[in-house]
């Protein structure tokens, strides 16, 4: 990146990549028609030829790294491979060229797929109704918490607090705050699970809900979940499931059966649609039957053999997204569910858990383990021993991994683990890939012992060297300003 010119810098006055046909309608005098004030000035667009544009963006895309390039063990993000058949189905013109205002009778096919997808997600998560509207995981959280808020208001309960564990995804407290709640944190115990006695103390008549990920961000199954559910429900509070880690339990355990009242799932994680680089994603939200009327409208329903958009939800929180959500993403996820089938989805989770445990075993002698037990689909290793012995940090390890051709794991999360590396291999990786990653970590550990500066200054073989994160955070430049 260093030294890669911007497309603006390649601009030369008068150079162009296209020529407009002569207008076949009379030209309008813009200034006299809409006035100089509204017209503003001409935008500063780069003036480049077609080949300039193609080379510029191809060059940038060459620097990109995605699941199609290599191993991408970004914890809690489930960067599994995205099967290409998904793209093929979503690109079928009957779906992709459908106008969102087309009358229901002309889009029965798309509606049928949405209807079926709602049903599949109900079956997989153990919920009764689903909305496909939310465009991402955090958007799903907001939808879910607004549903809970509206439900409590409708039941005449004024509840002001939401509980989150100290290991929760940052989006959980952010969602609670955005929805107008006060946040109460509960600590994790030594076993890495929610501390039940602390939870018991925190739950009172002011609590609206607990937001929980299961398995949690340490990759551990909250085995006291039924007890947790009882504690919340006894006080009239609800239980919210953050579906980011659903890939660990698909087809094996269902949030609905654990006592969760509202669930969001990330189609772009668990259901193999692309994410990173802007997505788009999809974060459908499922609820138990007593919350159905609060869902965003419309939801897709069926009468006889006809599918229709049902707007008749008297307590609906309203729309969360224009039209019906990111339908292309839903189509891809639908394709995934249908290609794997019930058994395949279960196998995917089993393999994800097996891969995580295999890799954990391969590297466990290199790191400290915050909690040393069998994990689910991801595990957290602490590099605090590297910091102590060699003066290198999790960040340095992550940067050096780039030189070995791997995307680094999530670092410094969850916040309760010092120098955390959060590793989620996913089910789609072979044993050879896992071994190669473990070997790279082992070599990097030797390098840390012999030449720690090699890590501190990494990456060495990337287009962009070590970036100044402080400067990036404090002096953000999002706009091109030409130098005269």
């Amino acid at each position, binding site marked *: 990146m260093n030294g890669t010119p911007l497309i603006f810098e390649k601009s030369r006055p008068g150079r162009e990549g296209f020529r407009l046909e002569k207008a076949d309608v009379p030209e309008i005098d813009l200034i006299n028609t809409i006035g100089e004030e509204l017209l503003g000035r001409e935008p500063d667009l780069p003036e480049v030829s077609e080949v300039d544009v193609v080379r510029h963006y191809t060059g940038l895309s060459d620097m990109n790294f995605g699941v199609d390039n290599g191993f991408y063990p970004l914890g809690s993000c489930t960067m599994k491979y995205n099967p290409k058949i998904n793209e093929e189905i979503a690109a079928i013109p009957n779906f992709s060229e459908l106008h969102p205002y087309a009358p229901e009778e002309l889009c029965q096919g798309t509606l049928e797929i949405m209807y079926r997808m709602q049903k599949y997600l109900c079956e997989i998560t153990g919920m009764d109704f689903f909305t496909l509207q939310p465009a991402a995981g955090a958007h799903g959280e907001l939808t879910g918490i607004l549903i809970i808020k509206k439900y409590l208001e409708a039941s005449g309960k004024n509840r002001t607090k939401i509980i989150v564990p100290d290991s929760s995804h*940052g989006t959980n407290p952010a969602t609670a705050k955005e929805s107008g709640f006060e946040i109460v944190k509960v600590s994790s115990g030594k076993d890495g699970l929610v501390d039940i006695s602390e939870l018991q103390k925190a739950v009172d008549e002011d609590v609206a809900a607990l937001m929980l990920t299961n398995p949690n961000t340490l990759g551990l199954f909250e085995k006291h979940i039924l007890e947790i559910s009882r504690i919340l429900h006894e006080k009239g509070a609800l239980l919210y499931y953050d579906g980011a880690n659903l890939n660990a339990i698909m087809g094996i355990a269902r949030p609905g059966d654990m006592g969760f009242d509202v669930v969001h799932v990330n189609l772009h994680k668990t259901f193999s649609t692309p994410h990173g680089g802007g997505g788009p994603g999809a974060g459908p939200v499922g609820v138990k039957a007593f919350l159905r009327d609060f869902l965003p409208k419309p939801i897709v329903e069926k009468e006889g053999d006809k599918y229709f958009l049902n707007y008749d939800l008297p307590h609906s929180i309203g729309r969360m997204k224009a039209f019906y959500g990111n339908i292309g993403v839903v189509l891809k996820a639908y394709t995934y569910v249908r290609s794997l089938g019930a058994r395949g989805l279960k196998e995917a989770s089993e393999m994800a858990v097996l891969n995580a445990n295999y890799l954990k075993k391969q590297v466990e002698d290199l790191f400290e383990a915050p909690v040393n037990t069998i994990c689910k689909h991801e595990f957290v290793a602490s590099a605090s021993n590297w910091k102590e012995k060699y003066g290198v940090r999790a960040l340095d390890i992550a940067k050096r991994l780039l030189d070995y051709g791997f995307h680094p794991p999530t670092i*410094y*999360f969850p*916040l309760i683990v*010092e120098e955390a590396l959060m590793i989620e291999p996913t089910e789609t990786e072979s044993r050879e890939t896992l071994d190669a990653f473990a070997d790279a970590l082992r070599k990097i550990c030797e390098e840390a012992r012999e030449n720690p500066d090699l890590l501190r200054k990494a990456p060495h073989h990337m287009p962009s060297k070590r970036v100044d*994160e*402080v400067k990036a*955070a*404090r002096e953000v430049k999002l706009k091109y300003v030409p130098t005269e």
Partner: protein
Amino acid sequence: MSKVPKNLLYTEEHEWIMVEDGRGTIGITDHAQEALGDVVYVDLPAVGDKIVKGETFGTVESVKAASDIYAPVSGTVVEVNEALKENPELINKSPYEDAWMVVVELDDENELDELLSPEDYKNILEGE
């Protein structure tokens, strides 16, 4: 091992307070800045604001994470360290001196009895 000056009182959430004549100067500890990493932004209350013991009164944001700062005591803010707005890196460089955050007029000096002594705080850090 991070520094724990002997003339201060501490909280389990890694804030320190120095009390003189009913006024307390508050900041975050060396351990806290070390754990946070490079600080890029600080959000502090304004002069005249009330802070409540155990509740958050500000936020420190580093390249790794955003963290709440908890009030070691209740009181009214009488001074705010404006230098931190422009130079949040002071928190990394000088957590106990240049990077004091606020001075408060204490509501109740008895609250100080519930804070940690340097020895107790040190023990907590060693236990971590």
